[in-house]
């Protein structure tokens, strides 16, 4: 195991940092008092635990009121989609419509607010502090130095977030996203109106919350379509000609990175797109400019549709997603000019995927993809066969992640790597990957894990309510 951090702490000599004697003794005194209190509480707790166990046992008696609440509850949350509500039985409150305030060039949009129990989650888009963005600002933003805080105001109290995450920023207009979580005191969590303040922005934003659309059956959430194992829901909002379509999903846990639009290098094969048709049969395609202007999230599409057009139907041609294989494969670094036969097969989704072989391709070889031409690469070949011939799932690419063993008895650890994953032919269902590992000539023992990208091809239609 690498222990780089130890090297730096080693350089930190505690003798170089002084502390006043008075502070020293006060801190020690306080710590000892805490230890004493802790020991007393632990003694009391062991008695209390026995009493609690007796009362908990009653929860598992079938037919008890608590047992009835253990049914799954689903909620639709604008801006997020359909979610399984873990706070069983407690109504979820959400923001019905986004709220925006502007001051000069700067703006703040509160897009989504979700209140579950005492925990409130807020998604904000803003450019505060970055409206005149420069390269240096971007650097500062990405290194966490520009870091405005969003607080909740309640009377004279300012409630800080438990944590917040900043992502973005758009080099064009400085727009970035801020997600913040708060644990609210009970009296605040009972309010229907919440007021926010963002550092550096003059105006406060007050939003009204309503109860989320909740049900214990998926059907209660509105119309949806099923693509393989994925339930796809369509939620639509209209403002003038602009129609915002949000596709959300419920899927098994092993399915990740669900998306409905192909990446640019996939568009040659997947030329169809999510589209809308009105009652007269006119088709509307996503409006990229509008999506860019609105900083659309993945799986949110914008359309321009005349206001008098109604009974809109959504068509979804594909769904792309990723699955990971739990298994770890071990192999020796292949020798140049020789192909190592691997022939390891595994089932993932509706497929049996086979790791066929690995070879070491020297730098400069014409086999290598253009960007990898200057580096030696491990080439790996795969193919896949459907377990269920009628399945509409296809393998799109395979992405291995390598670990290397340093020394004979060392553990396998991560290594810096870059990979070129060939897009698979949908008919042949086979493909290759080229991987370069930093310092690869030093390693003999390798292990790898696999992520597999899939696409489900079957157009479905949904009529949002």
């Amino acid at each position, binding site marked *: 195991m690498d222990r780089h951090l130890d090297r730096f702490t080693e350089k930190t000599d505690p003798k170089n940092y002084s502390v006043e004697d008075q502070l020293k003794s006060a801190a020690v005194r306080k710590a000892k008092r805490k230890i004493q209190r*802790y020991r007393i509480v632990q003694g009391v707790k062991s008695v209390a635990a026995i009493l609690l166990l007796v009362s908990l046992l009653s929860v598992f008696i079938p037919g008890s009121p608590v047992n009835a609440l253990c049914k799954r509850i689903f909620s639709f949350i604008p801006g997020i989609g359909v979610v399984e509500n873990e706070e069983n039985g407690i109504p979820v409150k959400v923001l019905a419509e986004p709220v925006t305030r502007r001051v000069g060039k700067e703006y703040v949009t509160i897009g989504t607010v979700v209140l579950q129990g005492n925990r409130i989650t807020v998604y904000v888009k803003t450019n505060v502090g970055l409206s005149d963005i420069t390269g240096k600002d971007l650097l500062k933003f*990405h290194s966490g130095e520009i870091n405005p805080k969003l607080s909740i105001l309640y009377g004279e109290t300012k409630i800080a977030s438990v944590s917040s995450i900043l992502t973005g920023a758009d080099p064009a207009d400085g727009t970035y996203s801020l997600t913040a979580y708060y644990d609210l005191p009970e009296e605040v969590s009972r309010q229907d109106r919440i007021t926010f303040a963002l550092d550096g922005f003059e105006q406060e934003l007050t939003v009204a919350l309503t109860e989320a659309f909740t049900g214990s059956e998926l059907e209660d959430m509105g119309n949806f379509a099923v693509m393989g194992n994925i339930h796809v829901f369509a939620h639509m909002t209209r403002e003038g000609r602009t129609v915002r379509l949000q596709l959300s999903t419920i899927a098994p846990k092993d399915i990740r990175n669900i998306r409905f639009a192909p990446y640019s290098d996939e568009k040659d094969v997947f030329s169809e797109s999510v589209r809308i048709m009105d009652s007269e049969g006119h088709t509307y395609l996503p409006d990229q400019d509008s999506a860019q202007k609105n900083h659309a999230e993945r799986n949110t599409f914008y359309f321009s549709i005349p206001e008098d057009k109604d009974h809109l139907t959504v068509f979804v041609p594909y769904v792309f997603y990723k699955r990971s294989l739990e298994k770890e494969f071990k192999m020796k670094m292949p020798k140049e000019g020789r192909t190592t036969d691997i022939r390891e097969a595994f089932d993932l989704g509706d497929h049996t995927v086979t790791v066929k072989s690995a070879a070491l391709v020297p730098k400069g070889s014409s086999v290598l993809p253009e960007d990898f031409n200057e580096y030696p690469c491990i080439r790996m070949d795969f193919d896949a066969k459907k377990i269920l011939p009628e399945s509409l799932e296809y393998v799109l690419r395979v992405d291995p992640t390598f670990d290397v063993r340093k020394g004979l008895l060392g553990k396998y650890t991560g290594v810096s790597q870059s990979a070129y994953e060939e897009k698979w032919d949908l008919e042949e269902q086979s493909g290759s990957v080229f991987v370069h590992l930093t310092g690869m000539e030093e390693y003999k023992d390798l292990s790898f894990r696999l992520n597999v990208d899939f696409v489900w091809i079957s157009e479905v239609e949904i009529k949002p309510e």
Partner: protein
Amino acid sequence: MEDRIIVEWLKKESDKGISALMNHYGGLLVYMAKNIGIVDKEDLEECIGDVLFHVWRKIRRYDEKKSSFKTWLVLLAKGCITDYVRKKRKLLATVPIESILNIEGPKRKEDYLDVLELLQKLPPEYGEVFYRRFVLGESVEHIASVMRLSAVNVYKRIQRGREKLKEFMEREES
């Protein structure tokens, strides 16, 4: 005093261990607390008292195979100090390391120890900047002058280090 003895005392004789820990590492702990924004004397006493208490409580979880005692201590201290600051609401909760990990953010002080192994893996060219900025809480300007780098370079290393950590994290998740 050797760390081994401090660890032993903390496990067997709390009073002796706490005093030895404060005598040896007190200055460093106060330095970290001040860097994170605790200036008030009473707050400092309370916060460092908290750190000492939690070190005593968690000492059985310290694993010398994973890190040196000093590394374990500074990470746990960082978690305790951040936690203290949150409770006092003198500073908001956004600690850059949280966004690196792309999770809700360590909510418990122990979570800082959970990232120990990831931080150990961070290559040295980013690791020192990271350690100074996010563990010791030193300012970018200070790091730049100590490491003889430009401030821009420090930001860049922080950014790359974050990306690297995210990569490690994703790999662990997958």
